[in-house]
């Protein structure tokens, strides 16, 4: 029986898993894109644009998933506007409240950035958007957007920690963990997508893979610390979800890609394989964390650990 809680499951399921996954990718992509936008070279532009497109798509999908998960979807706006007063509502100490705004603002920046990218690709002819390509507005959107991107990537983990649920509230590292994962899955997504686009410069791709590897290493470290920080509650990972964490996240999702990438004989398909594995790992991580906590169940007057 944990000291601090005896609690009920919020029944967060696949919508939330998917949202955490997609949101992470979106945030990660925007961050990477803006990094290349601000400090990259002209030949990085295709990937920058790609990054903004993905971020925009991700923001949209995230919004949809989040809304669908509500038991009263038509009341999604209650998160932003107090339904009784019509006044905008923000609780800085409630990750859900801040998150709603965060997603909204990220969406805004992603929209602008994607718009700029469209202009650069020559798909839209509209003066103001041109400014988003080069020049100050573009810089500002990139800078602020990447901040919101990081927020989107990380707040989901913080949200879980700011509850009374086993596993989630037993550690302060979920935010950091999801953030690493967001970076790696973001990079992996871009690597995959560049395969379809031939205008991506090999140097950019090389850097992406390198960045991805660094993120994976960091993720492994944080994951280890996270499991260690759980203490007795860590027992939930002795079971099936432990296997997912070890096999799916650590093995398939991190170590294997690292090994593949580091091999000398580098055939065409290696980066694709690696990136796919990384994405799978990112998904498994969300699943293991969210469903893992369900293993602790309140029964009658006690709590059952597996």
């Amino acid at each position, binding site marked *: 029986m944990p000291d601090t809680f005896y609690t009920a499951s919020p029944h967060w399921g696949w919508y939330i898993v998917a949202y955490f996954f997609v949101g992470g990718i979106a945030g990660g992509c925007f961050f990477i894109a803006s990094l290349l936008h601000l400090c990259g070279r002209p030949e990085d532009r295709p990937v920058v644009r790609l990054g903004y497109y993905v971020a*925009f798509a991700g*923001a*949209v999908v995230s*919004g*949809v998933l989040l*809304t669908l998960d509500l038991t009263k979807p038509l009341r999604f706006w209650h998160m932003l506007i*107090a339904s*009784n*007063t019509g*006044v*905008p*509502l*923000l*609780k*800085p100490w409630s990750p859900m409240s801040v998150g709603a*705004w965060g997603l*909204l*603002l990220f*969406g*805004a*920046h992603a*929209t*602008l950035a994607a718009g700029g990218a469209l202009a650069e690709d020559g798909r839209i002819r509209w003066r103001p958007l041109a400014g988003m390509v080069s020049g100050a507005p573009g810089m500002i959107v990139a800078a602020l957007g990447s901040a919101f991107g990081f927020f989107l990537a990380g707040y989901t983990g913080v949200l879980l920690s700011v509850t009374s649920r086993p596993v989630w509230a037993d550690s302060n590292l979920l935010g950091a963990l999801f953030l690493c994962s967001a970076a790696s899955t973001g990079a992996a997504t871009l690597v995959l997508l560049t395969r379809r686009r031939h205008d991506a410069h090999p140097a950019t791709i090389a850097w992406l893979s390198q960045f991805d590897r660094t993120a994976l290493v960091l993720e492994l470290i944080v994951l280890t610390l996270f499991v260690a920080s759980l203490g007795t509650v860590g027992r939930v990972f002795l079971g099936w979800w432990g296997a997912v964490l070890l096999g799916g996240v650590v093995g398939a999702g991190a170590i294997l890609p690292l090994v593949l990438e580091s091999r000398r004989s580098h055939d065409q398909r290696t980066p694709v394989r690696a990136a796919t594995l990384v994405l799978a790992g990112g998904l498994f991580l969300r699943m293991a964390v969210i469903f893992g906590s369900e293993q602790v169940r309140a029964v009658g007057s006690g709590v059952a650990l597996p």
Partner: protein
Amino acid sequence: MALSRREFLECTASMGAGGAIGSLVGLGLDLSPAVARAQTLRIREAKATPSLCPYCSVGCATIVHTIGNDIVNIEGDPRSPHNEGTLCPKGAAIYQLHKNPNRVTKALHRKPGAARWEAVSLEWAMDRVAELVKKTRDETFVERLSDGTLVNHTTAIFSLGGATLDNEWNHLQQKLMRGLGIVAIENQARI
């Protein structure tokens, strides 16, 4: 896409509002309107009628709230020196004894050997029962036992009644039965 359009529109607004977000915090938490809007008492317009719990023998007093002819609530009567407004789970559930989808509201009849019930009119059913009571009584009435003792009774009709019924019913039932010479009058009180 609708969603993203919403985002697009709202984002411009919020970007205008920009740093002002912090200042909204206080407003969002203002509770007074919420309190004012809280639900109103659902028995406010109801009529209260004193009644009793029909389960065990403690005799807990209840209050029945009705709106028109509709029972909307039944709870313990705080005035009662016996239960002082309290009830047990059964007493607290008297409402569902009255408002219950499983409740039958038609008289039913099953012919000898039949496989199912038929809904019948109350009048017909009462007439039929009266006929049967008379028939059986007349067939089985005994004035004197074989040893000559005067008894004026029949033992071929059995009246069995629950013990959650009114004193008034008990009086009517035992009076009618004894009036007819039916001696096998029993009640849950026995078993």
